[in-house]
């Protein structure tokens, strides 16, 4: 029984994990004006963040097409089953494209294997941990159903925290969610946000970056029963490494990795976003 795993480019997975588990990544698209790039394929993270700073127009993102998913699923036709874990449906239409493609393949009723599509309600390493949980289950011989359940469970046990320099990018990109209440103060703030139930929500609004980072650290280390932690950043690798070091010191038994956010995430958070994904133990 061969079960293959698919996710999308917003999972921010470490390349070594992608290789080890043979995970297929479906890229989302980034549009700078009329130019369209496939995330992580035509446009690397370094190039993107350099352009994000320079570009006068705010880049936009778009979900993969149904045909992209069909092509991926067809390419995995040798497998007995496919588990496809994706960015939350409240943040992106990606999940719809995946579901439509899976349905079309089923209706075609040919030799393609059954596809189980999982809406993680997560993004970045929140999605990454869900995907890894499925990969680990498959590696231990789990069925597609069990692997999908493992992904869902890990997604529910994960939280993604985020600090941004400005809410402007989230607002313009239409992803502000319940953090809308944090808009519109005359004072400078560095909002601390959380991706909760698939939606951005405001936690609090410290007025300096340092306080925001301090609060982020507190929220990370006070999360009960952490199993693994991913520190997320866009353009501030040194800050992310420093935070990771502090978290490792505070939680010596918890693996802490550092991930640079996908441009698709970066478009919506703005350049200086810093965050963390924490998977709690079951």
């Amino acid at each position, binding site marked *: 029984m061969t079960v293959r795993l698919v996710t999308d480019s917003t999972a921010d997975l470490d390349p070594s994990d992608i290789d080890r588990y043979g995970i297929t990544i479906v890229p989302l698209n980034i549009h700078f004006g009329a130019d369209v790039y496939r995330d992580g394929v035509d446009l690397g993270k370094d190039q993107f963040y350099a352009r994000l700073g320079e570009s006068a127009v705010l880049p936009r993102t778009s979900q993969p097409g149904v045909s992209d998913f069909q092509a991926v699923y067809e390419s995995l036709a040798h497998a007995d089953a496919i588990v496809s874990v994706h960015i939350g449906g409240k943040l992106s239409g990606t999940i719809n494209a995946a579901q439509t493609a899976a349905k079309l393949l089923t209706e075609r009723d040919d030799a393609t294997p059954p596809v189980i599509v999982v809406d993680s309600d997560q993004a970045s390493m929140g999605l990454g941990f869900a995907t890894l949980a499925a990969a680990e289950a498959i590696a231990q011989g789990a069925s597609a159903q069990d692997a999908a359940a493992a992904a869902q469970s890990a997604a*529910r046990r994960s939280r993604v925290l985020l600090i941004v320099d400005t809410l402007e990018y989230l607002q313009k990109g239409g992803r502000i969610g319940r953090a809308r209440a944090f808009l519109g103060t005359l004072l400078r703030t560095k909002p601390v946000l959380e991706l909760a139930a698939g939606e951005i929500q405001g936690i609090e609004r410290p007025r300096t970056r340092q306080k925001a980072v301090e609060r982020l650290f507190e929220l990370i280390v006070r999360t009960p029963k952490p199993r693994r932690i991913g520190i997320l950043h866009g353009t501030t690798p040194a800050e992310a490494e420093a935070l990771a070091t502090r978290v490792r010191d505070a939680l010596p038994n918890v693996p802490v990795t550092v991930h640079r956010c996908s441009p698709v995430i970066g478009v919506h958070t703005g350049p200086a976003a810093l965050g963390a994904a924490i998977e709690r133990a079951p």
Partner: protein
Amino acid sequence: MSHAGESPSPAQATDRSRPPGTSLTAADFRRMLRAASAWLDQHADAIDAINVFPVPDGDTGRNMAQTLRAAADATEEFTAETTAATTAETTAEAATAQPPDAPLGDLARRAADAALLGARGNSGVILSQWLRGLALALAGHAQAETALLADTLARASDSAYASIEKPREGTILSVARAAADCGPHASHFSIAAALRAAVERAEIAVARTPQQMPLLAQAGVVDSGAQGLAVVLAGLERGLSGADLGPAANFGQIRSDWLAGATPHAHSHGSYGSYGFCTEFVLRGETLSLQRIRAALDPLGDSMIVAGDEHLARVHLHTDTPQAAFDAGRRFGAIDRCTTDDMDARHQQLVGERTPGAPVITVAAIAVASGDGFAQLFRDFGASIVAGGPTLNPSPAEILAAARASGGTDILVLPNDPNVIAAARQAATLAADSSLTLHVVPTQSQPAAVAALAAWDRTAAPRESSHRMTRAAVALLTGAITHAARPIDKPLPLRRGQPFAMLGREIVAAAQSPQAALVDLVARMLVARGNDSAELLTIYTGQIDPSPPSAATPPVDLHTSLTAAIPALAERGVEIEVVIGGQPHYPFLLSLE
């Protein structure tokens, strides 16, 4: 009709020569409060004038006078109501019939309730608690003999002490205690004589306040809250004896520092410690002993607060065994409004594992605002506004009204002035009977409230929010530029109207213009930060006063002139943000974080 006619003595209420043994009646008490209120009104300006702290807000005399007036007005209403209710039935009764209820106790209770709701400023709150003590002692009594009066003054004193977290001598409290000292032997005397003795002891206690409070001694003054209570007692005595109120005394050179005496210390809740549940309940009973309740709960957790009286106590405890705490409470009385918050619950909630049975709470915030700019900033941060008015001293009733209108079940209250914190706490106590829980974040200034609101975690339990917001407010370095409301010599000489700078609540520099004071203050704030990082300086500009031409300086110039005058700002990478606060009295309010 008044109950004076039913007293055993034929003495008329206005008789100056009250024979020994005459009882104190409801009519006497009503007249005493009215007289004390009038007497305090007459002295309010004189008491305000002896405030050594020259900030143009929150004046002791006026606050106490407003509080006492609320009590006196309530007794008039009460008398009007009971007269209307009893006239019909008593006309046919014999004059010797026992009064059917306890008019003196009821009247005192009504007065105390009105004072609790109408209290303004710290001194007003303490005065209202003193009146509450009087009412508790008089409860159930139709009239009072001398011995009861002595008990009453003792209860009043105890109640005043209990209202302050860290009672200090050399304040209004010392006067309350001194007045109660007319005590043990008083029963040999008439009520009038006992009250006169209380007044004399009170006045001695006022004179001693400088010896008890080093800050007062330094300035060579007495405490104004202490002076205020002595005036109240003198007014009560005059009301009883029917003496002419006469002209107000002038306290002349006597000055005092109410701030030193009555600043409530910051909420000293530390971290949560190791206990997982924040547990609260209300106990009702007839003879609750707060001490015994504390003793029973102490082994179960920490961060314990047990507040209230014999009839109603509010309990707050961090514990791992909420049920054991509830059970312990039940041994003392009827238990009500039990809540327990799992302090980790919010994390679980956010990952989809809602704790079953967790109470449904909606957290709201209300902030006392003075100035349109601040009101808008507070609203932007999600708080409702309590209009502070020109002196920023709302009463507990006004705070309660705003809390009710906020739509929350748990309301974070930001008083934003040292002189409003006690009123906010009183509002919180008064709300214990309702479905609202008020959490006072003892902010001492409006910039501190901005810092507190910035640290308001929307996903946290209200008590955790309140603790975190308090820490954020305390950690903030604040400053203010204002004009001297009156001339002073210490800690530095100021002419009336002269601009000066305050760091926190301390007067640090005088200047020729608000702008010059601002430059001086910013430099001092940087020094005060020491080696700690300084990231963001926020300057809140005040209401534009049209008279001094310099006040029209556009805010953009502030940025340039400060950077030019203080190179350390750029060297330390401090960002400067200038926003319109619109506050009266203070051309600039500052915070450095």
